[in-house]
């Protein structure tokens, strides 16, 4: 049957004649057609549904609304189909208590600013609380060896360090290559070719290798920690652990932090080797400094303290990356979007924290004359 909707207006009476099936795809069209008529101008409304074989609940709501807006008029309805009458009845029964939704009052600017700052404040407090719990559960470790979970630590060392060796090595190799290549051109201008060794040695050992490694690990392991712990929270695994008496701090948090603190210096050491290797290649090709000469000068001009300063930073960076990643994991709420949000946050915050920490070290070491 062809779908149609005719409106006939006669003085104060309005006749709506539907034919064909009415479903939710037709409603907006019919609504528009009907909106040309002013309901208050009519005292009588008749709705003819005798040619309608089926209507869905959305259409029934549409008819209910029409009747509602004509509540001042007398309404007659022509319909013999029991199914349609039942649907109309069902809608009437359920819509009686419906009240249109009132828009909530708009939030003022100052309220919004206040809310944002309060959120930051409570986030900061939560982080401090997390730190406190971290240190108290750390203390328990000293009371007995039993609390140290060697198996989990070994697993995390494999996950977040051994498997990261390749990417850390490749990144630092390229960084060494690029730095050497850029400075080789400048040094050649002054004929100061040999000083590339001093330059590369100090910059890579002290700053570049630790920071680059930390950034790679923050992107790789920090985000993984957040996503793992966050999804464990959503699936209630954390709750299950707590009720069984497995403290998540001992099982999940400390192994990750300890593992990363152990492995970060090793990763930095690998990064040192690879970056220097990259620089050595460029020095050989571009500045014709043989590897023997390079190594010889490196051991004479670059003091060992530069190397140890870089390695020393490792555990601190590792601690920051792991705690921020895990804290963000615990901050995940019960919806899936919050995992993505917190993972992004964890990486950004971890990298930021690493750079701030590096700056503080820089000032401290300079003042100490190291």
């Amino acid at each position, binding site marked *: 049957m062809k779908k149609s909707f005719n409106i006939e207006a006669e003085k104060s009476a309005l006749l709506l004649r539907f034919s064909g099936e009415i*479903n*939710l*795809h037709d*409603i*907006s069209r019919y*609504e528009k057609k009907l909106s040309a008529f002013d309901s208050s101008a009519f005292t009588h409304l008749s709705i003819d549904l005798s040619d309608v074989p089926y209507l*869905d*609940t*959305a259409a029934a*709501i*549409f008819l209910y*609304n029409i009747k509602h807006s004509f509540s001042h008029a007398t309404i007659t309805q022509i319909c013999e189909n029991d*199914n349609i009458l*039942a*649907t109309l009845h*069902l*809608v009437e029964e*359920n*819509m009686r*208590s*419906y*009240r*249109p*939704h009132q828009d909530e009052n708009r939030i003022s600017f100052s309220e919004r600013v206040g809310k944002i700052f309060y959120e930051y404040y409570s986030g900061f407090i939560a982080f401090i609380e997390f730190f406190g719990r971290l240190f108290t559960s750390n203390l328990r470790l000293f009371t007995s060896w039993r609390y140290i979970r060697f198996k989990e630590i070994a697993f995390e060392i494999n996950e977040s360090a051994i498997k990261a060796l390749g990417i850390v090595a490749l990144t630092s190799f390229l960084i060494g290559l690029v730095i050497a290549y850029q400075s080789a051109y400048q040094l050649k201008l002054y004929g100061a070719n040999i000083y590339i060794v001093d330059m590369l040695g100090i910059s890579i050992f002290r700053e570049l290798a630790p920071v680059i490694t930390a950034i790679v690990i923050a992107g790789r392991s920090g985000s993984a920690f957040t996503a793992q712990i966050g999804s464990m929270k959503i699936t209630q695994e954390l709750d299950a652990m707590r009720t069984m008496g497995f403290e998540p701090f001992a099982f999940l948090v400390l192994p990750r932090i300890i593992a990363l603190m152990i492995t970060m210096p090793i990763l930095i050491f690998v990064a040192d080797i690879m970056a220097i290797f990259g620089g050595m290649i460029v020095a050989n090709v571009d500045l014709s400094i043989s590897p023997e000469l390079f190594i010889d000068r490196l051991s004479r001009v670059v003091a060992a303290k530069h190397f140890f300063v870089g390695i020393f930073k490792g555990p601190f960076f590792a601690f920051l990356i792991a705690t921020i990643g895990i804290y963000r994991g615990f901050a995940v*709420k*019960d*919806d*899936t*979007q919050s995992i993505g949000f917190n993972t992004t946050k964890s990486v950004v915050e971890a990298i930021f924290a690493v750079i701030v920490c590096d700056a503080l070290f820089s000032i401290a070491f300079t003042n100490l004359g190291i």
Partner: protein
Amino acid sequence: MAMIKVRDVVTAFGNRIIHDKLNLTVKKGEIYGLLGPSGCGKTTLLREMVMLQPFQSGSIEVLGKKVESLREREAQWLRRHWGVLFQFGALFSSLTIAENIALPLQEYAQLSPAMIEEIVAFKLSIVGLKQSDASLYPSEISGGMKKKAGLARALAMDPTLLFLDEPTSGLDPISAREFDALILKLRDMLGLTVVMVTHDLSSIYDTLDRVAIIDEKKIVYEGSLDDIASVQSEFVQTFFKERL
């Protein structure tokens, strides 16, 4: 008229055969139950019907269309004509209840926001949720409410076919009976055809018109519950012991 025809369906995970040539037919307007012991592949069959899982051979015809060889456009047509309620509701956790129900309406129909809001309110009302629940997120409501909200979402487009995966599991007995009554009421009023996987004996006897019992990779029985006593199957004999 047959709404669903399953013919010689074989499903295997690796070497493990789950279904060995299943045949069943769901007629228009009936409430059809898929029963069987745990792990017999009831939910798998349901997933195959709604195109979430491929099967090795055979054919499944839903609303006259063979799901194993459908073009994307026909598949979309089919998806708009059925509603699926998952075991745990599977509500989108980043949307409120109202937004969950409104989503298919916004995507597939040109409706004004006011109209969508009214349809949402109506669907909430028929499944027995309050209007004040509409603005809550799935994480803020109970398991039973999640089921009801999931049902409201499945009904959003007024489907002709409704798939329910264990609709009453995890509900308290009173809510479960209310849910059964609701399904019966909706079938009568909206002319729905319902296919459900269930373990709930009361709900089996209260709502189902016909059942298929899957056991030992085969359909051991298809038909009404009246003749079930004659079935020679260990599952049937133990499961229906109290009622036989």
